[in-house]
């Protein structure tokens, strides 16, 4: 539980500001106590209320930020308390657990912006810098922020006007016109690119199964994807479909199972392992087309994270999941738009390490994936419930204008 104290001054009674602030506190599920209330004697006299808030730290932090808009100011945010980690890979007890929102810590008399917002980390303050650090990367002696004193969190600005988030003010889009949505996604990608932002694609195997891979490969070839995250399955089926024409043994062209097709993916994994890497398989001419080959040709970095049920896996797959997550983190800076394409686990893993400001479009035939991302705090995730194959075709048409 966190305690914050806010102050509200002025003509807060007749303007219903006090009522509004108290309603907002109750709506947020936060307990409050009015510790001071001075009512102005005449209509022109200001009143003053001091309100103590008590609740879940993340909720209270967000609430205090929201209430600032109505003129409620936090009383003495305090100074961040730093405690040295006593061993590698362990945060000190009572550590401040981060959100993915822009965060600042008050140390040495000044607010210091936390450099790489990421949820579920600790904050290490050293050398005049504050940064998020996941627990496994903590080293003994790291000064870690403990408690919530001297920490403030900024809620993302509400998007207004003609942005796609305004257009889509419900979170999930199963009943929205898809053509319009795809056009908006394309606009956001273009706008991000104009600002110099990077585009991240997170891909699940269904991209290949539904026939979306050739369109995604064209987008990679045309430079619309700057970094790609996936697992063994996506990369394997992408390679299988280009080398053998099947995805999990099913003909991509005809949609029918092929003789002995069930082993096709193992055969391509085996051959790529023989070459040593996907890049080597491309260089040797074994793999010519598809998304992975396009990434290799364009020099688009990719991170393939492993899982316990992987066949093979492909030699490029990072089987140490902590190392895979670190490799993903290393690619996050500069990402402005993330496309989560029919991927549940990798989308959530990616959502975990993205700052809240990254515009995230989650395309999945299953509404649950989108909901799950939002539930985990990726508030910027906009869900598009549709078949990823046709979605990618439409997106490629918008961005490449050639179909």
């Amino acid at each position: 539980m966190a305690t914050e104290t806010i102050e509200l001054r002025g003509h807060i009674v007749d303007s219903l500001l006090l009522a509004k602030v108290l309603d907002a506190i109750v709506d947020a599920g936060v307990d409050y106590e009015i510790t001071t209330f001075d009512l102005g004697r005449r209509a022109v006299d200001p009143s003053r209320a001091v309100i103590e808030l008590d609740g879940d730290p993340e909720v209270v932090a967000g609430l205090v930020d929201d209430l600032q808009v109505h003129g409620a100011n936090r009383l003495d945010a305090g100074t961040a308390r730093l405690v040295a980690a006593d061993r590698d890979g362990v945060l000190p007890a009572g550590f401040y657990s981060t959100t993915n929102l822009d965060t600042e810590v008050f140390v040495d008399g000044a607010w210091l912006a936390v450099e790489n917002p990421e949820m579920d980390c600790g904050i290490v303050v050293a050398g005049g810098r504050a940064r998020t650090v996941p627990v496994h990367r903590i080293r003994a002696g790291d000064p870690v922020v403990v408690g919530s004193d001297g920490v403030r969190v900024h809620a993302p600005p509400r998007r207004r006007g003609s942005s796609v988030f305004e257009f889509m003010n419900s979170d999930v889009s199963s009943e929205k016109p898809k053509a319009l949505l795809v056009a908006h996604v394309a606009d956001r990608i273009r706008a991000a690119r104009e600002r110099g932002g990077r585009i991240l694609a997170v891909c699940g195997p269904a991209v290949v199964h539904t026939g979306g891979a050739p369109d995604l490969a064209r987008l990679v070839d045309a430079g619309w994807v700057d970094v790609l995250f996936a697992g063994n399955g996506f990369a394997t089926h992408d390679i299988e479909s280009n080398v053998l024409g099947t995805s999990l043994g099913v003909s991509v062209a005809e949609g029918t199972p092929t003789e002995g097709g069930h082993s096709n993916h193992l055969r391509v994994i085996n051959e790529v392992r023989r070459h040593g890497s996907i890049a080597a398989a491309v260089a040797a001419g074994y793999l010519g087309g598809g998304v992975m080959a396009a990434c290799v040709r364009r020099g688009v970095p990719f991170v393939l994270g492993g899982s316990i049920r992987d066949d093979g896996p492909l030699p490029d797959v990072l089987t140490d999941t902590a190392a895979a997550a670190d490799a993903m983190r290393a690619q996050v800076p500069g990402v402005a738009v993330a496309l989560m394409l029919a991927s549940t686990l990798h989308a959530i893993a990616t959502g975990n390490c993205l700052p809240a400001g990254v515009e995230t479009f989650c395309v999945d035939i299953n509404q649950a994936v989108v909901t799950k991302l939002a539930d985990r705090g990726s508030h910027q995730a906009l869900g598009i419930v549709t078949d990823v194959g046709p979605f990618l075709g439409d997106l490629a048409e918008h961005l490449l204008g050639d179909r």
Partner: protein
Amino acid sequence: MAELGWGRRYLMCPPQHFGVLYEINPWMHREVAVVADRAAEQWHGLRAALEAAGAEVVTMDPHPEVPDLVFTANAGIVDRDRFVPSHFRHPQRQPETEIDAAWFATRGFTVARLPAEIRQEGAGDALPFTPKDGPTVLLAGYSFRSDATAATELSRLLDAVVRPVQLVDERLYHLDLTFCPLDERRAICAPSGWDAYGRKVVEALVPEPLWLTDEEALAFCANSVVVGTTVVMPSTPPRVGRQLEAWGFDVVESRVDEFLKAGGGCRCLTLALDVALS
């Protein structure tokens, strides 16, 4: 009908340098060019309408680097011989503050300043309403351009009753697009511009509001200027005109379409100089 106690003397700024040179509200689009001759014609038309209604108009010199200086409603807040200059939210308009402060200082006004960190955009976000049996209330809009805390500071600086009202529609980004006091009982009101608390505050303050529909509000009906019993409006939907006339007002339409391109109507182009808050 007891007329408003103010609104007979206005400050305006000729639109010599007016144009849409940047985009800081949803109405502004740089690709939509302002027709300078028509803007000048409309500005003079508004001035003539105010003078014909019995108002005195004084002008300030335009400056080439601040095109929005033409919207004098945002210069600041006048209370008798005191002037509180605006603190603009957008850097593009911030240079206007010292130009406005200097204009008022050289004319004998005491210039009272808000704390530097507080944003407040003048009469655009603060309009007085004086009910029959109560003190004058300065209704202050906040969220898009002005801070809620400005209300507290204004009440301290001016010793006035100030009621902040949250604006919630970005297209109605200033209070003066949602509220126009008519007399001691009535005001033109655009409820879609306020949150639920703001609506209650206005309902408690104004005995007979003229509620605008969304469409009427977006036609800038509330951005009108009242001179005695004359209401000078940028557009007059028949329903609104009939209601005002039934209440005994003369309605004068003064087209200011060129200024609507920058998100400003009749009220935005004027600043009442004869306001007394207490």
